[in-house]
Structures are given as C-alpha cells and as structure tokens.
C-alpha cells in the first residue's frame, strides 16, 4: 500500500499554492485588522467588531451557497431581490389585519426562498438558459414583487422573532445570533463541499461537466439543488436584515450581488468553475467586511466605497488571471 503522505515535488507545489493562497488571504486579513485598529480608535471596539461581524454574517451566508453555485460554473445575481422580497413579505404578513403568527414567518420566508431558487433552477437546468441573464430577470421579478407588496413604502416590523434573528445577542458571551447562524451554515457548507458525496459531485461537475454526466452524475439535479440552496440562504439573510433594521422595504440589499460575488472570487473560486473552497470564501468575506467597515471608520463615505468595489472586483479577477497565465 503506497504511502499516501508521500507527495511528489510537482504535486506538492500545486497543493502548496492552493493552501498558500488561502493563507495569504488570512494574512492580509490580519494585516488589515492591525492597520485599521491603528488608524481608528473605534475600530477595535467590541461594539464595532460585533456590528462588523453581523454585517459579514449577513452577506457571508449567501456567499457560502454562491460559492457552490460558482464552482459549477453558474451564477446567481437574484440574491438581492430575493432578500428584498423576503423582508417585504415578512413585514407585510406581520402587519395584516389578521396577522400571521410570528413563529410561522420563518418557515414562510424560507419557503419563499426555496420557491425563488426553484424558479431559477428550473430555467437554468431544464431549459439550459444563461444563468446570468436568468437571475437578472429573477432579480427584477422579485424586487418588483417587493414593490408591489409594499407599494414602495417601508413597513415597520417590531417583532420578537425576527428581532431575535436579527439583533439578539446570546447573553454572557455576547455573540450576535446572525454570527451563530453564519458559523453554523458555513460549517455545514464546509462539510458538504469537502466531505460529502454531494459536494464531490459539485466539484466533478465544475471540473468537467461532460465527464460528470457520462459518469452518471445527475448534473441537472445537483445544479437545481444548488440554486435552491442559494435561494433559501438569501431568504435567511433577508430575515436577518429585517430583524436588524426592523423594516421591510423593497430597497433592501441593492447592489449586494456585487459584494458577494467579489468575496467569492477573492476567495479563489474561479468564474469558469471547477475551483473554489469554503475556507477561501470565508477569507474573502472577512476581508471585504473588514475593509468596508474599516473604511467607514476612517471616514470614507459610501460613495467612495462603491467606487472601490468596482475597481476591486476587476483587480481581483485580473490578478488571478495573470497568476494562472504565469503558471502555464
């Protein structure tokens, strides 16, 4: 029996490169935290860290599922619209003349997310449509429905359950619930992607879809499930946001797609698919979260950050592209 730990030099280099990218990312993260702490006194405060981590959890949950989608070469830009619609629906139902009971709001929200995910999944896997344009359409549909539902106004929702999800902190250790959710979901996704049969199928599809199909993998079903998951995760994020802001409005999460995609790409997932990891996405999400928060603390305003976002996205992809080209 060959010694599995014995790796040839060439192989070791490649493995080291994958690992080192993630390490570098975490290294960058550490440096950034140090720099921002030095530049702004408020940065390293408990309050700020807590807020920052909550924000990170909000977009991180979706980034996790999006990672799986992108590994198979797909994309989901309807997540923002999904979040908006979820928050509008929840707020709407809660404020009806005969209000929907609070405990029912969560399953309803998740069901909505599943429905949106299934909608995407159907068109992308059954009709083989371009994922980018399809989810662009879904984004319009969902956000539009949010506007219809709320007649473009914000609906207040002061409620225990959503408040619990969005704002509560576990007493004693003072950890916000969203962070717990984020950690749990990421742990699950990590397990799924790296240790489960399903996760292996995801990687196979990403590496060579034709070979995966010939090998008997139900490519259609796997992709469908991934879009389903993405939809549910977005709804969950929507619940968190609603809880945090205590408001359901159709303008929620505008432009969030860009953040999430940038985080996933930063973490090393390739746009064409095949490569990617949850750990990498974690690093990406953390880095971006710290970056935006840090910038705000220093005094940059939203508009500056927005400009930076666009540049960052292009730079990240360019860097990875150049690195891959050098390797060949």
């Amino acid at each position, binding site marked *: 029996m060959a010694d599995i730990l014995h790796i040839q030099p060439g192989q070791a280099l490649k493995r080291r490169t994958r690992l080192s990218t993630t390490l570098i990312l975490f290294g960058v993260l550490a440096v950034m935290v140090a720099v921002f702490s030095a530049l702004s006194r408020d940065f390293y405060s408990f309050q700020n860290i807590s807020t920052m981590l909550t924000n990170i959890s909000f977009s991180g949950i979706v980034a996790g599922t999006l990672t799986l989608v992108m590994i198979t070469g797909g994309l989901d830009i309807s997540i923002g619209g999904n979040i908006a619609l979820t928050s509008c629906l929840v707020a709407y139902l809660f404020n009806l003349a005969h209000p929907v009971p609070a405990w029912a709001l969560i399953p309803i929200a998740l069901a909505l997310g599943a429905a949106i995910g299934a909608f995407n999944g159907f068109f992308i896997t059954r009709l083989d449509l371009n994922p980018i344009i399809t989810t662009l359409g879904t984004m319009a549909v969902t956000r539009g429905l949010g506007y219809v539902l709320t007649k473009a106004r914000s609906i207040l929702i002061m409620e225990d359950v959503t408040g619990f999800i969005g704002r509560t902190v576990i007493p004693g250790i003072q950890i916000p619930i969203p962070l717990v959710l984020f950690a749990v979901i990421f742990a699950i996704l990590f397990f799924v992607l790296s240790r489960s049969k399903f996760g292996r199928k995801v990687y196979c599809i990403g590496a060579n879809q034709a070979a995966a199909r010939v090998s008997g*993998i139900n490519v259609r079903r796997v992709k469908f499930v991934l879009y389903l998951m993405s939809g549910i995760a977005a709804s969950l994020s929507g619940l968190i946001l609603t809880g945090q802001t205590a408001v359901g409005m159709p303008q929620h999460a505008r432009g969030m797609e860009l953040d999430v995609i940038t985080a996933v790409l930063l973490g090393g997932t390739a746009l064409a698919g095949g490569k990617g990891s949850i750990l990498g996405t974690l690093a990406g999400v953390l880095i971006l979260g710290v970056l935006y928060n840090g910038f705000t603390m220093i005094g940059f305003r939203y508009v500056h950050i927005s400009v930076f976002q666009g540049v960052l996205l292009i730079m990240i992809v360019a860097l990875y592209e150049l690195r891959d080209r050098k390797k060949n």
Partner: protein
Amino acid sequence: MEQPLLEMRNISKQFPGVQALKDVSIDLRAGEVLGLVGENGAGKSTLIKILAGDYRADTGEIFINGRKVDFRSPSDAAAMGIQFIYQELITLDTLTVAENLLVGHLPTRKMIGMVDWKAANENARQVLETMNIDLDPRTIVGDLTVHQKQVLEIAKAIHKKATILVMDEPTAALGEEDTQSLFAIIRNLKEQGVGVIHISHRLKEVFDITDRVTVLRDGQKIDTVQTSQATMTQLISMMVGRELAEFYPKRDLPIGDTLLEVGDLTINGIIDRVSFSLRSGEIVGLFGLLGSGRMNVLRALYGLDGYDAGRVAVKGTPTIINGPRGALGNGIGYMPIDRKLEGLALGLPVSSNITMANIDNIGRGFALNRRLEREKAQKWVNDVSIRTPDIATDANSLSGGNQQKIVLAKLLETGSKIFLMNEPTRGIDVGAKVDIYHMMENLCEAGAGIVMISSELPEMLSMADRIIVIAKGKVTAEFNRAEATQEKLLHATTL
C-alpha cells in the same frame, strides 16, 4: 514530361516513440484525382498535416509545379494555392452562402464604400455556377445540409484560387445521392485543371472517383496504382498486407448467458434496425468506417443519445435506458472515445476520477468515506497498473495510456457487467494497450461482456469473438473470430 502539380519526395517524420512516416513520396498531376488510402495510423493525416504546414517534415522536400517550397505555417500552403476541406466544417452559420464565400472581402460600391449586395450575390452565383453547384447565394448557411455546407467549403476554396484541393473523408457523413453530387463537382474541378487529393476509407468510392491511388501502410508508401487497372482485393491486400503480428489474441473463454440484446435499434436518418446480442464472457466488435453509425449505436445504448425505435433487453429483461444513470443502473458502463472531453476531469486527482461514477456507494449516508475512497483508488491503481506518483496526483499529469487506465478503473469500480468501449486503446502506447487488453480479458473471464468499437483491424481481429460490420447505418455482416479476416471486414464495409 509535364511537371506534376505537387510532389512530396522522401518525406519522413518521427514522433517520440513512433515513426509516423518513412520515406514517403507522392505526386499529384493537374486535373487528376489522387486517392490516398490506408488504415488508421498508416500516416495519411501526418502527411497531410505536413502539406498543410502544421508539421515540418524531418527529411524530404515538397515541390509545387517543380519549384521547391518550404511551408512554415498554415498560411503558406494557402498562399501556394493548396486548400483543405476537413471534416469539421468551419462555417458562419447565421450568415448567407454569399457572405460565407466572400467573408472578409465583400465587394463594395466604388463611390461610397458600402457593401454591394447585388454584386456579392452575383459573384457568388457565378462561382457556384462554374462549379455546377445548385445553391441560392441568399440561403442562410445554418439551413443547409452537411453536404451542402461541404460543397460550400469547396466553392470557397476554389474562389480562393485553389489549384490543389485536399479532401479528408468528404463522404463520411453523406448519403448516396449527395456523394454522387459531390463527385460531379469534383469531376468538374478536374476539367478545370485542379488537382484533388481524396483521402477515404470507402474503397468503393475510391474506385468511383480517383484516377490513381496511393496506398500507405505503417508510415510507408506501398505503391501508387492506376485505379482503372486495380482491383478491390489488390488494394485491400496492399493496405493490410503485413503479417498479423503478435498482438494479443484473446483466449477462448467459456461463453455464458445473454447479457444484452439489441433489437431493431433505429435513429431516423442515422442507424437503421441494428440488432445484435452480447453474451457473458465474450467480446463483440462493432466495426465500421467513419460515418457508418457505429458510435451512434453505442451512445444510444448508454443513453447519451436518444433513439427512435428498437428494443433493448438486459439479462432478458426489456429495459428503457434513461441516460447514463439508467445505463449504469442496468450494469452498463461506457468508455468514451475522447477521454479528455468525456472521460476524465483533468483538474481532479486520480482517486476522484476513479470514484466519479460510483460516488453514491462510497460510504453510508451523506458523507463520502474518504478512507474507503483511498483504498479503492489504491486497489485499482494496483490492479490496472496505473503509473502515478500518488493517487492524489492530478489526472492531467499522467500519460495518455495511464489516463485511459483511469477511465477503465472508473468503469470497473461501478461493478458493471456490460462494457461499451469506444476505441479503448486510442492514442496510447503499446505497453498500455497490452495492459488494457489484459484487463478486458480478465473481465470476460469474470463473466462480463464487452462491446468494442475499434478502427484498428488487427486489434479487432485479435480481441473480438464476433465482429459485426456496420455500414451506412445498417448491419452488413457478422463474422466470428475463426472466419474473420481483414479483407472480409473491409469488404463488408463496402456493401
């Protein structure tokens, strides 16, 4: 004596491990059709690639109209008036015939510089007319049949002032009528002084259209004969005339029950009522030329393509094959012809590739049992003699032969009993070939059955217990091993 249009003298070319061409000389005269025949691997495509400027010959020279030329790139050949018509047609399907013909240099009105469609269509019409081609220049190319597209490619070549036309298996996808129509065009070209090199496996057609035929075998030129004075038998024996070398004759093994029964399998326009059966312990070969439909049969049996009529029964039970998963569920495994396209994920490690078709069974529940996977991968690496530094090595680091073995291991891991193999030893070295034959034999000994497509006659004759010949979508003959000969097989493809 008149200078030949083209002369290739003493061409030799070696690749690592194989002498593709050894001292081959051919010549082509103006206004003649020269057939180039030979088996797979005889060196035809290498010779053509050298002519096209894709490869450079190790030794030898090329002369055009008596002048020595040196092709350094594909555009050099075109500049000398040589045009190639390959099997993969390169057309602009959303545009018209006229536009395809004139792409890049559409005629414009002198004053304004605007495209003159009237002139374009007229030019195209003229070109097509001189070749006796009946095609409306305003038709969208995407609407044309394969034959018409091919004809268009030829027209394009002539329009580029080709004096030498090289056609690689032009009739592979054509029916009888279209073939005759193509030949009419070729004869027309002959009259205009164009020289045509016609590469084909279809010997009947070679007799139909060529003036002379050059036979290649194992990288050497055997002879060039006048077609009118040659016979089919003569050609065939020149093509295969070697001694059937020590390949790897499959041992005669006990044949058991019927594993697979195929009845009247039909795909409209492609294959017509193909029937055969496969029994435990035997290897059935499907032999046919390019475009005969043999691959369509295999792909339909594995559920990769649909079929329009027919019955399939596995171990006596009629079944419907619903895609690869359905096939695997019925104990049918498939080895694709192109391992890079459909067989392997090159970016994944060896172990992941080996287990790809059996993921659900490696471990209980949701989790993939990685230890079990490593054990299985290691087992197969040993059993199938895959040379790899480690099971975690990425598949693209391995040689072609070892990559093919990975695909085989993947099939074995599924525990299938019926194996559909599409050119199992394509593009791999002799050592690996022998290993694969060995494995195939073991499988049969264990009671499995194999349906094998191979275009290498010696391989087919030594490995298959029974050989079914398919031509133009129909079964034309069936031979058992004792009675089969290369000549009979090739002859059956002409029926």
